[in-house]
């Protein structure tokens, strides 16, 4: 479903990402899908460093390095200004990490979603504060090792998609660097919708997940195929649709390639499987409800 040219790269080589970085792949795909008429707000996160340091830029679009907790209102502010100045053909995208979205920026993100301000919010989720060196966020999964959760995090991963869906924004979707076409399709879908759009992209982090650099995309694919990170979209907070039917591989396939889960015993892996199955069933109920009501 190529709606526009999605071949032109707007991210140059020579950026500052670690080898095997999932965030860099996601940024490249998002910008490809958005095209040149885009202004990006990038808050402190891996993405802001990947975009290179003063006076350089790895991006071929104008970007602004905002403050940690203000990706959303900063993007909305630019969007208002563009509208006031009659520049309606420019897309504004906010790019934030999981810490900047799930934690410190949640209040302001909720504010813009409530007001349904016109921009795309992209959360590049690598499941911890990776830019500051692997500290747990509320996007870190239960039992995952980080430097601040040496025995594994005890709380479950916050369900940011349900939070955003509860705001009844016109469009929210998950996407994965393992499924680039699905990701770019969703970005372009978001671009064509008026109001606040939210994209939750899982971006495996070889450094922080304690795995080999060549496993980033494998990890992304396995997160989807094990139903740990299903690919779906939600319209108006109510109409759910799965965009890729996962195989339902055992979660162990995903866990075993990552050093951050190395400490799990068989019982813990079994509980991870149960929790994943429950989450999937809950999501699937939303989808079948929608199908039953003929919403999609």
């Amino acid at each position, binding site marked *: 479903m190529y709606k526009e040219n999605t071949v032109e790269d707007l991210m140059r080589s020579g950026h500052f990402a670690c080898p095997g970085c999932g965030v860099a792949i996601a940024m490249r795909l998002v910008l490809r899908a958005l095209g040149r*008429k885009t202004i990006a707000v990038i808050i402190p996160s891996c993405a802001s460093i990947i975009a290179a340091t*003063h006076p*350089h830029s790895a991006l071929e679009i104008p970007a602004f390095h905002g403050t940690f907790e203000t990706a959303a*209102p900063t993007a*909305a*502010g*630019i969007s208002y200004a563009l509208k*006031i100045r009659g520049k309606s053909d420019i897309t504004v995208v906010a790019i934030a990490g999981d810490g900047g979205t799930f934690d410190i920026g949640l209040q302001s993100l909720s504010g813009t979603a*409530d007001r349904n301000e016109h921009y795309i919010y992209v959360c590049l989720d690598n499941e911890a504060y990776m830019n500051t060196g692997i500290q747990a966020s509320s996007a870190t999964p239960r039992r995952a090792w980080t430097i601040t959760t040496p025995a594994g995090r005890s709380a479950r991963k916050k369900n940011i998609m349900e939070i955003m869906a509860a705001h009844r924004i016109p469009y929210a979707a998950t996407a994965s660097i393992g499924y680039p076409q699905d990701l770019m399709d969703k970005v372009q879908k978001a671009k064509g919708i008026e109001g606040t759009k939210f994209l939750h992209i899982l971006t495996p982090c070889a450094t922080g997940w304690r795995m080999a650099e060549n496993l980033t995309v494998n990890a992304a694919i396995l997160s989807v195929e094990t139903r740990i990170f299903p690919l779906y979209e939600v319209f108006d907070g109510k109409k759910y649709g799965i965009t890729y039917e996962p195989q339902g591989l055992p979660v162990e396939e995903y866990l075993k390639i990552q050093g951050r889960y190395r400490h799990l015993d068989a019982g813990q892996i079994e509980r991870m499987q149960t929790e994943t199955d429950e989450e999937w069933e809950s999501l699937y109920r939303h989808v079948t409800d929608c199908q039953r009501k003929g919403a999609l």
Partner: protein
Amino acid sequence: MRDLLSGNYAIAEAVRMAKAQLIPAYPITPQTPIYERLSEMESQGTLPGVMVRVESEHSAMAMCIAASLAGVRVFTATSSQGLALMHEMLHFASGNRVPVVMGCVNRVLAVPWSFGSDQTDTLSQRDTGWMQFYCEDNQEAFDTVIQAYRISEATMLPSMVIIDAFFNSHFIEPMDVPDQRLIDLFLPQATLPERFDLNDPAFISNVVTSGAQFLPFRERAFTDMEKAKEIIREVDIEYRAQFGRGYGMVETVQTKDAQLVLVTSGSMTSTARMAIEALRDKGLKVGLLKIKAFRPFPSREVEDALQNIPKVAVIDRNISIGKEGIFCQELKSALYNSTARPRIYGYIAGLDGLDVSPEIIENICLEVLGKEMPDNLPIWVKGN
């Protein structure tokens, strides 16, 4: 046109006439009537700009910065806790060189919780790189908002236009509201630089990687804040020529032959004017120095005003715990390398809106006139 307006409404009226294009706002006492009045104008179709009812002051400033970078004239207003919450974004605004104009209504910071006037909220934002203008009355607040846009857009530094809680914000005074046509001539539509250029893309407010890269940014801002003094003077002169009112960075009243000069800021200045008159009637040579611009600090004007003055009494409606009143400190530091070396007596009065009556001010003057040396610590004035 003559009108009766509170300080808050005067600011709202000036923002409307300045044609601010985007106004992200959040309620906090005693600033709220600015937000409410602007909302009322918007609903009546008389506000040229767009209002956004944001979820915090922090986001209000984030949105102001973003929209200003994207080329539109912006405004917001706040007080006290709201200003403190904005603190991070205040540095971010000046660092990004955006000409944001903000109305600030001085209110005490908790704890204890209260609502009365106290300048410590804005004064503790001293080092954020914002210009600060303390207004005496509602007319001055209106005029200063109009001037502040000219000054900020010429210097690319943000401005706070500051009034006292209740004494200004809620008291209604007769004032002159100029014709829109004249305001438009004085303050044309904003022509801000294009920071987001699709044809020449850059990563704005990017990370610098060494102190050698960092320093020129601060040095440039410092130099431009120094240059702002001249721009403030010029804009004020032009405003006076156009509208018949000007204020200067400071104002002096009967300081030429004074044995004692009172230093005040904000609404207290009006009371001090009466006290000075009463003391002059009693044959006492007392003058007044009103400080309007706090950042940039008008060191030259202060030095000139206090040459050959033996004594100065500073009345601060604010306190820096661990030192003294903040205007008092600033005055001392401005004069240290100067030939003007009066003895400086510091008083703390009017915190939380405690009344500072003409009698209180007269008594302060009498006490200072009869006192050989200043105390090391400020004197706390507890009211009548």
